[in-house]
């Protein structure tokens, strides 16, 4: 009898903590936010029912569009730079001929252990003008026009144009966090530093799972290293690639802490660092309009769902083709 009771209810007992937690902290807020998005909330208590006016206003709000633009640019940069870089590092560190690869793996992964908050604060110092590590290094490498070598002069001019340096300004004066055109590159650089090692771990695990016999067979067939990579490695790690791409996309679309901390609790010059979640936070928790913030949240959720769906469908279609 006791055994039967156990086998019937034990499973419910064990899933109960998750179900209860999800219902309280997941399901209820989702329903509540949907209801809230139909109101304009003002001040701590007042709210007025406005139907779908918040959703309509989102579509006309120039700040929301700027936030979407910035977020999409950030996500694309992350996808196009971080993931190939992570894969390249993983392939390099998977080589059996590389000495000290375990140490190198740790070195690449270690920025992730540092944590986002600390890394952001650290990078505010690294990106600082005049005395920041990055600018001091650039100044040491590229020097001033009077002291430059011919090779330095060749790359100096286009680079100066790229970072917006004026005549008379030195490399110490690059305004990474002070110029609207450089905020996004600075964010992407920090994101690369933080996330490459983390994604590398996924790729490394996938690479180690690829059957070595396939490489031997390819070698016998006369395939060179590049052909082996394209025809053996990539198909072998494809499921992990899809997983990492989806995870990275969702993470990038939800980016908030990174620019918020790096730009000292602001959207940066000309709102160049304004992201969707940051705009949601500003409206909900600074201005106090939880209704509008909820509407923004729903746009974001639907957007992420669509992105993920497209990616899954595309990868499924590719798998079928393969």
């Amino acid at each position: 009898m006791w055994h039967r009771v156990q086998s019937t209810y034990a499973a419910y007992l064990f899933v109960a903590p998750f179900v209860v937690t999800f219902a309280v902290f997941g399901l209820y807020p989702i329903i509540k936010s949907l209801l809230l998005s139909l109101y304009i909330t003002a001040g701590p208590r007042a709210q007025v029912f406005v139907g779908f006016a918040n959703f309509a206003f989102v579509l006309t709000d120039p700040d929301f569009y700027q936030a979407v633009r910035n977020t999409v640019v950030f996500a694309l940069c992350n996808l196009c730079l971080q993931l190939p870089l992570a894969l390249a590092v993983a392939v390099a560190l998977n080589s059996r001929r590389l000495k000290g690869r375990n140490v190198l793996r740790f070195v690449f992964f270690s920025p992730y252990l540092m944590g986002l908050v600390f890394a952001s604060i650290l990078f505010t110092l690294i990106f600082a003008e005049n005395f920041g590590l990055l600018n001091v290094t650039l100044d040491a490498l590229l020097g001033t026009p009077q002291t430059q070598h011919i090779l330095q002069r060749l790359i100096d001019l286009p680079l100066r144009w790229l970072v917006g340096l004026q005549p008379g300004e030195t490399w110490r004066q690059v305004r990474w966090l002070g110029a609207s055109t450089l905020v996004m590159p600075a964010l992407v650089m920090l994101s690369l530093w933080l996330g490459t090692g983390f994604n590398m771990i996924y790729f490394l695990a996938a690479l180690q799972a690829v059957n070595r016999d396939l490489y031997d067979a390819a070698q016998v067939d006369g395939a060179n290293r590049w052909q082996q990579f394209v025809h053996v490695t990539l198909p072998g790690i494809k499921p992990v690639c899809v997983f990492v791409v989806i995870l990275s996309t969702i993470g990038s679309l939800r980016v908030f802490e990174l620019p918020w901390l790096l730009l000292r609790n602001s959207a940066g010059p000309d709102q160049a660092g304004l992201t969707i979640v940051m705009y949601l936070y500003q409206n909900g928790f600074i201005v106090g309009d939880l209704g509008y913030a909820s509407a923004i949240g729903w746009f974001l959720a639907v957007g992420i769902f669509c992105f993920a769906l497209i990616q899954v469908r595309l990868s499924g279609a590719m798998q079928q083709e393969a």
Partner: protein
Amino acid sequence: MHKGKYLYRITCIYKAFDVNQVKKRRVLHVADDQPSTWDAFNDAVTEFLPFGVAPALLLLVTLVAGIYVASTPVKRPQADLQLWTFASNHHKSYKAALPAFVARSGITVDLQHVNPNAVTRKLRAAFRAGLKVPDLVEVENTRAGTFFRGPVDEIPFIDLKPYLLQTKNAQGQSLYDRMVNNRFALYSHKGRIYGLPHDVHPVMIAYRRDIIAAHRDRILAETGLDVGDASNLGAVLQTWEDFVNVGRVLTIPGQRYMFQLDDSVSSSFELLLYQRGGDFFDAAGRVTLNSEIALKTLLWLTPLTSGTPAERIADRAGGSRTSLYQHVAKGFILAYLCPDWLAGLTELYLQDVAGKMALMPLPYFPDDARRQRTTTGGGTMLGITIQPGRSPAQAWAVAQHIYFDLPSLKKQFQETRILPPLKDAWHGPDHAAYIGLDEPIAFWSGQPIGRMFADLADAIPQRHGSPFLQLAKGKAGAVVAAAAAYYRQHGREGFEAFVRTRLQQAAAEIELQMRRNPF
């Protein structure tokens, strides 16, 4: 049961976490000829715990930890009132001041230091959820307005105006009349005053006296202005034109700049806007960011930060206070806008240049008939929250003590250099001497900076609060950054038209958000 068997069972439970260990153990049992005990134990466990020992232990640990946490709640001090402040220097000052109040009145106060970003969030969440809120709370001026968005009868702070008018001194003067009236506008909404101003925050210019004095001859030769030992620069550099001319002499592009101005956010722009008599909103709450004053301010400021080497005398110095201290200490920046609170922090963090710094009133704009020589930067209000069924009298008594009690004001000025908004404290002979406003301060080259700030304080420009102030500052910052970027790329060509358009656009965007507010 044999003593060794207890130990053995404990070892089994421990080893159960690790499958490999269990396997090894089983082999060991065979070798030790004791496999039956483990099997019996394992069978018994499986009988009652079908998911094994490890999940059961995890469940047990969770339950024990949960029960422990639930049964030992964090003990909060039992006090009659609770006070939240977000500034560490305020916290320090009130902590020292409150024991005297408790001894005198018998009212106990639980003083809490809350993170500046968390104050508004926690407060709003507590109001919304109907949880206990502090009786008194300090809110930063930019955030204060967000509490005034709703209908007047739902604003969670009491109207302090009656209290300010009824509280009178021996001469019959009300507290309202004895304070800087310009300061109330920031915390007022629809004719009611929701916040007691903590400060006035007049602004001067802090500068590296030693470096400017060292270039006396060059400055004299190139501008005709004799700065002497630079200890009284305010008398020599009366207009911004003079200041900029001296700046052009002292600035070495890439190595040294006369002034710190930020062209990526609104912070510097807004101080200069107030000095000229402009504001983000007028008394009726209408947007004035697109005013001619705002346009003139930006047209003047941008070439100083983003112009050609011949025009430029300013740098943003990294855009943070920590970075500013570093730039000043190294002589990269010679001068910066300095409210009274920043003077206190400068003394704290720039000890390397003690005795080499000095303060001067702001130069006035040549086209300003008022010859305004100060502005105001920052601010904090103290609000008394509406508590159902409770009289705010006790909270008002606390507010009066921490904001107007003389020993508290003295401590506040000595530790933070923050000038109180109570005018008696500046001019009353007993008050000023007691607080130490006239004392020369060695850090500032012997200048009596308390007196210097007090002389300017009554002339601070009026600023108007708004539920949309934070938004307006963000929009203004975007225009400042865009203007700087434009000027760096195109110079003066089309600059005025560009700035005018951007200001109008920013104002329209703020109005768009304001129109959504149905209250």
